[in-house]
């Protein structure tokens, strides 16, 4: 909190008020004193609102560009994996260097919770992009600790460094499961059934872990909705895996075929 404001004007005002012989002067003076103190409040509000606007803009840029990383990762297939991920890594690094760094600079030296509403959407999207990339690269969940460590070089060492909080991380991971669902369905259509099953186990595990965390989160209304969506994603992947499993005998011979056609897997039921 940095809200200290002067109080000398008020003492003067009180003094004048207690002196009934200066009535006409009193009115104009008290009005002037009041507007002088309000000038300080106005300055505070203007500074805060300008900062908020810049934070919102940075957050929006982070969102847009993180979405591009996510789309890039979805272009993955059996044949182009390395090259797709390489480009995704570059794009992600660009988001960090160009946009997330702006957020860090804007927020350093302030209470990170004050403007959380303004930057939370961007940070969540960034967590989503970073964790999706990491999963495709290593098959693991990128830890909050690792993300926060990567943010350290962005901030001025003389300030408390900006760290993503648990809430935004968990909200981002919840969105990640939606992307993983798309990825799993895509892999199944490409015939990479085992990879889809790996994704399925991974998403299930995230869901299971979050069922414990979500009920004690700060403001968990948004998160509870995401849990429902997440369960739907899990079920969609499971159903897709089930379809392939049950009707496997019908299409396995096609796997070696250069032009596989899996429309009978019931993709239209998956509502992609």
């Amino acid at each position, binding site marked *: 909190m940095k809200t200290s404001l002067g109080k000398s004007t*008020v003492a003067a005002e009180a003094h004048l008020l207690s002196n009934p012989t200066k009535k006409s002067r009193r009115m104009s003076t008290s009005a002037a004193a009041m507007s002088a103190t*309000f000038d300080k*409040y106005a300055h505070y509000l203007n500074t805060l609102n300008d900062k908020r606007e810049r934070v919102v803009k940075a957050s929006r840029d982070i969102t847009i560009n993180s979405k591009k990383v996510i789309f890039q990762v979805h272009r993955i297939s059996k044949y182009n994996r390395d090259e797709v991920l390489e480009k995704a890594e570059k794009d992600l690094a660009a988001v960090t260097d160009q946009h997330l760094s702006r957020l860090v600079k804007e927020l350093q030296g302030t*209470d990170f919770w004050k403007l959380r509403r303004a930057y939370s959407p961007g940070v969540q999207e960034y967590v989503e992009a970073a964790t999706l990339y990491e999963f495709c690269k290593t098959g693991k969940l990128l830890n*909050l600790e690792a993300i926060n460590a990567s943010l350290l070089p962005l901030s001025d060492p003389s300030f408390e460094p900006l760290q993503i909080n648990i809430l935004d991380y968990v909200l981002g991971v919840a969105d990640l499961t939606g992307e993983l669902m798309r990825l799993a369905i895509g892999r199944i259509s490409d015939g990479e059934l085992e990879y889809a099953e790996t994704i399925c186990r991974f998403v299930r595990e995230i869901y299971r872990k979050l069922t414990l965390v979500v009920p004690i989160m700060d403001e968990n209304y948004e998160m509870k909705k995401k849990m429902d969506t997440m369960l739907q994603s899990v079920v969609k992947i499971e159903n897709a895996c089930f379809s392939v499993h049950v009707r496997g005998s019908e299409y396995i011979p096609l796997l070696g075929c250069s032009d596989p056609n899996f429309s009978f897997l019931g993709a239209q039921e998956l509502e992609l």
Partner: protein
Amino acid sequence: MAADAGDSSFSSSSMEKQFGGFLQQLEQSGNLRDKIRAVAAEIESSTRVMHSCLLLVHESRPIPEVAAKAEAQIEVMKGLYGRLAEILRECPGQYYRYHGDWRTETQTAISMIAFLHWLQMGNLLVHSEVEQKLGLDSSEFGLDIEDYLIGICFMSNELPRYVVNQVTAGDYDCPRKVLAFLTDLHASFRILNLRNDFLRKKFDGMKYDLRRVEEVYYDVKIRGLAPIGDSTATKGPKHKHG
């Protein structure tokens, strides 16, 4: 598919550790929030006591008598804010994480403290003075300026009723004084560039208070009840509609 075997490969290692850590940290902040809410509830009950004291001004009780009881509550609140600051010391830099838990109570408290101050002094209690009265230190646990301003808007809501009752009790000079104060206050608020938020909404409501006080002033003046010499010297040209 061998789901069980797969599960263990994910749930072991780092994922287990991370979410276990989250649980622990969230439980801690939940406990902290419970403590804060308990104090906030006490602040709220203190504001209710203070409110009931202040309501006596509408029955034209002498201000010093009303103030004595109400001021005792300010001391109570001061103690409570001290406890709140102490709790928050456990988590530096997270004032705004928990801010919502004492916000409304604080706004109400400010409205009453500022109203009492106006009754006694006839002028506006400014932000730094509220901090002083409540023993707040802006370097660690300060008073949010927006909360202060919202509290002042609430205070303005009290004034029309006060004016009406004062006139009924025979104080015909009161509308002039209140109108002058409220006009200045309204003009000062217009200096602020407000966003489309709660404060803006409350400020928009202030003009109805101003209008009501103007009406009372008009009623009193047109019937020749207002002390004439005084009012022409001080009011008149400054008077503008919100």
